[in-house]
């Protein structure tokens, strides 16, 4: 949509370590990421690939013993790494909203959820309490909470997981942030509520030019709302590009294998099984020479053990970390793109 917009969030050469300084456990090796104004960027990858840490790093919210040991992070041209605690506080409160994976630990158990929401509203705009309550109730309604007047008075433990998640979403968007970092925001929700939330995000983009960095392992969700996509694995970005490009012509074997293992409604009644990626993602203690995906890759060659994981451009706004590019010939041959990825009707 606004692919030509100016960069809002820019992360370069990010490295996050755990463990001691002598024996660091590297969770994020080298990650670069750009989110432009009003743009929706998806971040996919398996657990442990470093997606959540990358998100937390963007707001310098990595919890000790984790630490950012390298990298540049800028928001709207300002250096986030150089910000004082006060500046960070203002950034997190007003400009960047964040929805964490776990809504249980993000809400204060001793306050009513409506009050927590109203507090956020009052922090960002001067308004009387009564007005804040009306707006908070409206927000609860927007995120699909039935009977919002009554739910305003509920404590977090009285709500179901899905309901708590919706409250978190309401709090995150209450300040009308310019960027929303959403870590698996709809994973706990059923599909109808999920559709509602995705619509709400799209509306916020229309109305306020809000950008979203969306972490998800649901390719359907990504396809529905995102413009660009970054695929992470083992602490690296393996491929990045426009969602359409990546879905139809993935260059990295991991991206392609991942897309092929996505369950689909089309499989109903078919006896055929889906090919699974063999093996397990690497553990933090493992240090693999060359490509981190090579041990599980169907196209691995001896030289994969020595390649650098740098992203190389392969097309307009499309970069991959796989120099082998095993599918390049297939795509060049004009063959139909991967059959498991049907085109989405808008």
């Amino acid at each position, binding site marked *: 949509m606004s692919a030509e917009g100016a960069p809002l969030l820019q992360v370069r050469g990010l490295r996050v370590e755990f463990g001691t300084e002598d024996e660091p456990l590297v969770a994020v090796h080298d990650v670069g990421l750009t989110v432009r104004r009003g743009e929706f960027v998806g971040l996919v990858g398996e657990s442990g690939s470093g997606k959540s840490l990358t998100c937390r790093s963007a707001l310098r919210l990595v919890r000790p013993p984790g630490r950012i040991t390298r990298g540049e992070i800028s928001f709207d041209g300002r250096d986030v790494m150089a910000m004082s605690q006060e500046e960070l506080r203002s950034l997190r409160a007003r400009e960047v909203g964040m929805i964490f994976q776990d809504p249980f630990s993000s809400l204060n158990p001793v306050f009513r959820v409506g009050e927590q929401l109203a507090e956020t509203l009052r922090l960002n705009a001067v308004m009387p309490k009564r007005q804040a309550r009306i707006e908070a109730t409206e927000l609860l309604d927007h995120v699909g909470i039935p009977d919002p007047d009554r739910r305003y008075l509920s404590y977090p433990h009285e709500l*179901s997981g899905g309901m708590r998640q919706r409250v978190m979403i309401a709090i995150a968007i209450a300040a009308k942030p310019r960027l929303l970092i959403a870590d698996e925001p709809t994973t706990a929700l059923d*599909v*109808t509520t*999920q559709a509602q939330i995705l619509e709400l995000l799209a509306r916020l983009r229309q109305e306020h030019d809000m950008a979203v960095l969306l972490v998800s392992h649901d390719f359907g969700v990504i*396809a529905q709302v995102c413009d660009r996509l970054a695929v992470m694995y083992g602490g690296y970005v393996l491929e990045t590009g426009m969602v359409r490009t990546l879905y139809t012509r993935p260059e990295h074997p991991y991206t392609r294998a991942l897309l092929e293992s996505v369950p689909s*409604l089309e*499989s109903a009644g078919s006896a055929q099984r*889906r090919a699974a990626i063999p093996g*397990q993602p690497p553990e933090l203690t493992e240090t693999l020479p060359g490509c981190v995906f090579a041990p599980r890759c169907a196209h691995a060659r001896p030289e994969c053990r020595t390649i650098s994981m740098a992203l190389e451009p392969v097309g307009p706004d499309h970069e991959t970390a796989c120099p082998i590019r095993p599918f390049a010939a297939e795509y060049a041959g004009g063959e139909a793109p991967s059959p498991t990825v049907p085109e989405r009707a808008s």
Partner: protein
Amino acid sequence: MNGASPLLEAEGIVKEFGLRRSRIEMLHGTLPGHRAVDDVSFNLDRGEILGIAGGSGSGKTTLARCLNRLVEPDEGSIRLDGVDVRAARGNELRELRRRMQMVFQDPYASLNPRMSVGSALHEAGRVHQRPGSEDREGFVSGLLDRVHLPASVATRRPRELSGGQRQRVAVARALAVGPEVLIADEAVSALDVSIQTQLLNLFLDLRDELGVAIIFIAHQLAVIAEVADRVAIMHQGRIVETGPTADAFHSPQDPYTVTLLAAHPQP
């Protein structure tokens, strides 16, 4: 064994939960409770995979728990191979539960963190005096092999395993007692896509190799599409549509199924 009759028959199952009420509402005392499961009937054949889909709060989990009476149903009848589950007591109920095993979403919560995987698997077999459980090593490695885990996993504790491995261990433990029905309640929902596919294929293997019937509960319709022969769609405690998975998903009859399918994000 009678080949023609279904393995599991559930008829008219009802489960009601009380609601928290205001004092005035309690005074009137006429409000009905919340019907989590409302008059549900279905059959499960031997070696069949039945998917149960529905939104959150539709009663999928309560229904599953009613089947082996982890939750006591209020009404209805449940028969496993002709044996009345609701009338069973003591040893009889234990035996029925052995034959209907559950696998939950969070294996970490259902495995004892202090017990090695081998001990957990062996204990399950020993308690139910399963054939072969006298030979601990053979029994354990046989089970691990069944779920495609290396025998070395036996000495590990749950926290040392990845999410996918832990879920395989949970499946192995369910298999340790030789069940005829596996009830998998959101068993793959928390897993990453690539690991999810591995697990789905494992469930298909178990059905093909052991002939075990599976009730597969999931909120993701696509996951059900991958494994289930038949599907039942639940909404507000009732089954609103049931039929072969292909029919229900390609030409849904009930308006709720249509809504659910329409809301399902497809790449």
